[in-house]
């Protein structure tokens, strides 16, 4: 049993930490009945470890710590919101802009979502094909390959880069899927996708938010924020993002060229 005597330091520690395997435990227990020196060692160690653990026991958590953590999390939530509110909105004075937005965003009513929007989101979440075009060439590519009359949305506030597109289909119609990357002043990026398709005869629902006389449909589906705009030609622009909250995405779409454009029916009375 010399191999046990040789390893008694290891074995004693492992024993007291409750980490010996079953057969190792049996071997050691048997050895301890036969070997006084190892038995002494194991007993001394048991006393020493118990004493050490007793002395290491920490005091109870201070009552105020929980409240302090809650406050820190609140601050964190606020900090995460603040840059969005200020960089998404037009104008330099963020506070004034927030107030302005509050004036013209009006939630009209909140009907349950229908399946058609979910179809769009489902399509967006399946990454069937790679992007067909990226970067600055996107606009020209879309004109040539999708529909020359489509005006790609641009955004009046924040730094938004259009960085890719692909052709796809949704609800059995040809659709254009655009990818945008929004950069905050802190250098954080938020990805936004837009699905553009002919929505003639398709009912799209969401919570209705009116911005400057135009209606946006706002919702969340499958963990994504979804904001839909339908233009005067019944073309749907479904914006989605996993990184922007619904109100943040609404504010972003609110600054888009889509809503600033004169409607076709207004331009040609």
């Amino acid at each position, binding site marked *: 049993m010399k191999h046990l005597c040789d*390893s*008694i*330091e290891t074995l004693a520690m492992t024993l007291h*930490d409750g980490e010996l395997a079953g057969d190792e435990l049996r071997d050691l227990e048997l050895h301890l009945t036969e070997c006084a020196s190892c038995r002494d060692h194991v007993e001394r160690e048991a006393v020493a470890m118990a004493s050490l653990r007793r002395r*290491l026991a920490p005091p109870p958590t201070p009552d105020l710590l929980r409240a302090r953590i809650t406050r820190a999390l609140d601050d964190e*939530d606020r900090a995460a919101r603040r840059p969005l509110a200020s960089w998404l909105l037009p104008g330099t004075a963020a506070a004034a802009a927030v107030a302005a937005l509050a004036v013209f965003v009006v939630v009209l009513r909140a009907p349950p979502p229908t399946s058609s929007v979910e179809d769009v989101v489902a399509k967006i979440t399946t990454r069937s094909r790679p992007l067909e075009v990226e970067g600055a060439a996107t606009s020209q590519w879309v004109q040539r390959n999708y529909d020359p009359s489509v005006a790609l949305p641009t955004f009046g506030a924040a730094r938004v880069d259009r960085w890719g597109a692909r052709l796809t289909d949704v609800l059995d119609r040809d659709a254009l899927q655009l990818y945008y990357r929004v950069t905050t002043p802190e250098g954080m990026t938020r990805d936004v996708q837009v699905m553009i398709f002919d929505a003639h005869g398709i009912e799209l629902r969401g919570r209705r938010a009116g911005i400057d006389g135009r209606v946006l449909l706002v919702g969340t589906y499958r963990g994504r924020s979804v904001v839909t705009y339908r233009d005067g030609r019944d073309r749907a622009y479904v914006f989605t993002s996993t990184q922007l909250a619904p*109100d943040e995405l609404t504010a972003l779409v609110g600054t888009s060229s889509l809503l600033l454009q004169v409607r076709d029916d207004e331009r040609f009375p």
Partner: protein
Amino acid sequence: MLSRRRDSRRDFEATALPHLDALYGAAYRLARNPRDAEDLVQEALLRAYRFWDTFEKDSNCRAWLLRILTNTFINEYQRRRRQREVLDAATAEQTATDGVLVHEGAQAQRSPEGVLLERAVSDDVQRALDALPADFRTAVVLCDVEGLAYKEIAEVMDCPVGTVMSRLFRGRRLLQQSLAQFAVEQGYVKAPAAAPAASPPDDAGGEPAAAPIDLGAYRSRRPRS
């Protein structure tokens, strides 16, 4: 509005915050004083909250949080140690001249309010922990304060189980030696004290030559039945 963030906050509070006591217990023994312990817990929980999306919901949340906490501690510890090394040289000289106890000298480098706080609330075990290398201290705290299994400690510290065992073994020995020494200095025990679980004479510095902690070696030597 902001329901995604609110859901995430609720989820975090329900899943992570129940481990607050465990986090505080570990932080209390890792940090130098209760105030630093609270800072450490807060910093670790904020980091955890920022990376909550990356937490795999079915995995061990306490181990995940402790990993963040110990990493935060070790990073901070290393930053402070670099600052302290400069002070250490001067203090060592001073200590020799004044005949001040070594551990008193170690305290004198801290900020006055830190010293006050520590005098008020600290105990020998905290001083002994402070003298341990960060890895040893972390292993001992995770095992003897948190009750983590070797395998969990290995996950938290991102090292093999064998390394956990040797850090634990040596960390505990060093702690016991320090505590025995403090007891002598304070007159609780007459020198030379028989340290509890007397350690091999050569294990204070390098590897404990007499009894390397190696369960693998034992298992390989152990005759198969």
